[in-house]
């Protein structure tokens, strides 16, 4: 309730100074889930994604766990298997007590071919079908935007082949980027430290 100046009263009634009726303050519409994220959080992105389980989500759905993300495509013969291996190596090295706090996200840069069905098959083939692993199919536009957020560069070089930068990104549970590991088969010690550090916070 308010009347003169900025003074606000908790109860209904009249203003002790001017005796006018107190007016209710317009309640600000608060979006709590939005409020908890920062301006730099990837959860600000509104693009829609399909998971390998066929569920449609926005990235915000992933909020709450430390996220380890990589962009791949399932027909990739060169670097992707190594990237996938790098992801698995990271997962293996995370101590058991933290395992449930980390989610591993594989984002396809080939949304045309990597349908939820294809991603599910890929998950099974690579023994990544348990709940820790999430595979995402976006729209061409959504993928481009997401890659831009991660500063991942990619280009289609033939119908089934892409060039892309090999970057594994770590996000804290609020969706802020905390670390990026560049290259293939690189020492993942720092990445693992960062993940554990983020989980502990």
């Amino acid at each position, binding site marked *: 309730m308010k009347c003169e100046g900025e003074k606000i009263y908790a109860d209904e009634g009249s203003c002790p100074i001017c005796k006018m009726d107190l007016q209710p303050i317009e309640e600000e519409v608060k979006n709590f889930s939005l409020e908890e994220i920062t*301006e730099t959080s990837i959860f*600000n992105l509104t693009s829609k994604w399909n998971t390998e389980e066929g569920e449609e989500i926005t990235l915000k759905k992933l909020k709450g766990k430390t996220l380890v993300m990589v962009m791949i495509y399932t027909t990739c013969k060169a670097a992707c298997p190594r990237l996938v291996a790098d992801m698995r190596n990271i997962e293996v090295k995370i101590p058991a007590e933290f395992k449930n706090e980390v989610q591993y996200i594989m984002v396809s840069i080939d949304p045309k071919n990597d349908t939820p069905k294809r991603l599910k098959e890929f998950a099974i083939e690579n023994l990544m079908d348990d709940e820790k692993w999430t595979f995402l199919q976006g729209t061409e536009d959504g993928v481009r*935007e997401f890659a831009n957020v991660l500063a991942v560069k990619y280009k289609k070089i033939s119908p089934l082949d892409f*060039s892309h930068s090999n970057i594994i990104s770590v996000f804290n549970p609020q969706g802020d980027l905390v670390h990026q590991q560049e290259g293939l088969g690189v020492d993942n010690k720092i990445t693992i430290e960062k993940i554990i550090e983020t989980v502990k916070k």
Partner: protein
Amino acid sequence: MKTIVRLAVTMLFLNSIIANCQPKMVKIKGGTYIPLYGTNNQKVTIDNFYIDVYPVTNQEFLEFVKKHPEWKRSKALKLFVDDNYLNDWKSDTILNTNQNLQSPITSISWFAAKNYCEAQNKRLPTVDEWEYVAMSNENMPDARTLKNYNEFILSWYEKPKTNIQTIGSTFQNYWKVYDMHGLVWEWTSDFNAVLISGESRKDVDKDNDLFCGSAAVNATDLMNYAAFMRYAIRGSLKAKYTMKNLGFRCVKD
């Protein structure tokens, strides 16, 4: 008689609406060409599309910001813009005294440019589309082999502050499009498809590590130094970056 007058008025009215809503786009007839960074010298096929005759101006972007307050300088999310976003403006909705309404908008990020185009039911051009239009001079659709075409572009790259000129102050090209060269650099939708890292020292051997299939980086025409500069700039950009000499224009299918 009345009907005729009414019709005439309606026609005039319609004309002005069309002129206002769809100002200054021209049709680009598609075709094939080999871009600087082709894939194994493969030709790229471009479909027909429409392109803005001029880069987006300060005035147009100002109107956009007023309609879409989430893109005001004080409101835009840090995920989408860096600290220099619109930093030459006096305030959220007022230009500085030394800024011309008819100059190209700059100091905007890829996200801001993309959203602007989408708000007009348009989109950003792809690198290939942009280069396709930009390889023309006044009379030829592909002037890339001409010495004076390349010299003009390179001499512009050396000039400071061309962004404060007004739109239309450079030449009209074969497609009747202005300012592809000589005014500002322009964002493209897939600028992040350029596979060279920002730092040239990084591009030597480590590249194989960073990029899968890095054989894609093959200049089909290394002589085309001007275009090489553009690809290098694109390769160094991140989508939230803003630059004083980087603007954009939109296209439509």
